[in-house]
């Protein structure tokens, strides 16, 4: 288990989120003044949030990155509010701002600054992979091809054994795309450092801005 060095933390649902976001931060040279923590599931993120809230001295800033999945980002925000004590929850808005959420409680000694970003863009359904695809340059033909092929596969009936789950469509699409780039099979995080994904695209900038507001 990696030792925590900072009093600012970014809580993530899984390893893929961790590697991707770490690579993104590195490639745009975001100051490394926070710990990136793999909570292993969405539930894990909430559990860690609860525990870390009880130790505000060691957790002065807590950022959460969650997948919207098939839910409305507002639902995710509500789930978060339900886990917080009433006084803190009352200073949270009712809907997610599209630039990501940063809340600063009045009593900084007893409560941390809390941030929330809901993948892909705080507005739509989706997950990390949908965000990742927004970093693909507009004119890239291979991503259109990936869309075609994934659609074809979805149309095969009866459904092939062991086929990807419908909710994971975006994962199938983005990993197919990455299978055809140079070099094939590069993971999403490394795809940034290899120049396949653009860390300065509009969507990436929004996310990085949120991180900056939260941690600096």
């Amino acid at each position, binding site marked *: *288990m990696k*030792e*925590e060095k900072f009093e600012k933390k970014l809580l993530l649902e899984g390893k893929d989120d961790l590697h991707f976001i770490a690579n993104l931060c590195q490639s745009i040279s975001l100051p490394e003044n926070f710990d990136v923590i793999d*909570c292993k599931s969405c539930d*894990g993120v909430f*559990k*860690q949030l*609860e*525990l*870390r809230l*009880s*130790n505000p*001295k*060691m957790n002065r800033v807590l950022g959460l990155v969650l997948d919207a999945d098939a839910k409305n980002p507002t639902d995710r925000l509500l789930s978060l509010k339900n886990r917080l004590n009433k006084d803190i929850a009352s200073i949270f808005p009712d809907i997610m701002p599209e630039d990501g959420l940063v809340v600063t409680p009045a009593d900084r*000694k*007893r409560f941390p600054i809390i941030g929330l970003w809901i993948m892909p863009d705080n507005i739509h359904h989706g997950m990390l992979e949908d965000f990742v695809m927004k970093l693909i340059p507009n004119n890239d033909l291979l991503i259109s091809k990936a869309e075609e092929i994934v659609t074809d596969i979805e149309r095969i009936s009866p459904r092939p054994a062991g086929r990807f789950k419908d909710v994971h469509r975006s994962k199938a699409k983005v990993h197919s795309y990455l299978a055809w780039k140079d070099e094939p099979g590069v993971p999403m995080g490394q795809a940034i450092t290899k120049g396949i994904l653009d860390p300065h695209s509009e969507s990436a900038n929004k996310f990085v801005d949120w991180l900056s507001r939260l941690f600096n």
Partner: protein
Amino acid sequence: MLLKSIYIENYKGFKHLVVPELGQVNLIWGTNNVGKSSLLEAISIYASEGSVEQIENVLNLRDEQFPKVMSPSTEENDDRLVDVLLHLVHNYSRDILEKGAFVIGESQDKDIIRFRLVKRYRGVKDNGQEIVTAAYNDAIDDTINDVYSAIEITNKEGKNYIRTNGRLSLPKNSSDDCKCIFVSSATKMFTGIGGLWSSISMTEMEGKIIEALRIIEPRIEKFNILLDESMRMTPFVFLEGDFDKRRLSTLGDGINRILRIVLALVNCKDGVLLVDEIEYGLHYSVQTKLWKIINQLAQQLNVQVFATTHSIDCIHSFARCAKDYGCMAFRLDNYDGEIEVQTYADADNLLYAVSENIELR
């Protein structure tokens, strides 16, 4: 379980501390000087129902004392009494002392003991037989002589008064006192070991002591507390393969620590055991086994245990046991002079935090 909750006002570092829920076995941690030991002291005062003896013990722990010798000057005696009490009051505040001193108990309105500085004198009724108690700041008629200061202790049985002259009013409730033993972090051989051993020797609990000692030295076959050459009661063991008994102290400090803790525990049936720095001198693997024994005995004998620690290992080993027994964990924090408590009631969450290496201290 003796205490369901804790409520403290103005005792030492605690201006206003509320711990709403307690377990059978409770572990408290926090940074140095945050008040862990003071919390144990407060609990010991409450558990002993405000007994004078316990207050003296608490003062002794910090090398303070009720003056034993009375001075001819009442004023000087009074000053010394106030001086002593000031050590126990929040911020050493004379103001708080004169207005209402401190309060220790389970909740704001009931099951509470109040300590107050008062003035006492013989009143004019009943031919001067009646002793009147007045608030410390009340103006008293010049014609009245022999006014002295005293500490008034109010518990559910009534009121008791302490002066500094050895003539203490005895508490109304005496021998049925709740059993409360405080094991501090010092590992020097403790007095009273003979008595503690005698009360459980040749009972089922003797076996429990040996079981606990075997955590560190599995070869122990026999154990006893005997008079040594200097006529002091000393623990001895007989190890498998040895030809003669040997002092327990030859096996190191850790095993002595375990003896102190477990011997105290088995003597606290239906009472309270307080252990400061429970991890002192004990390796992580030993701590895990010790927690298990403490939990089993606490349940079996209905002892409520309060322990403090600095060690993350200790929190880890405690967390591993917490699920199977009614344990609770607490952290004390100092926010600009106000001490607050964070309760970890959920054993699952505690274990999760430990396994994910989330910093709790």
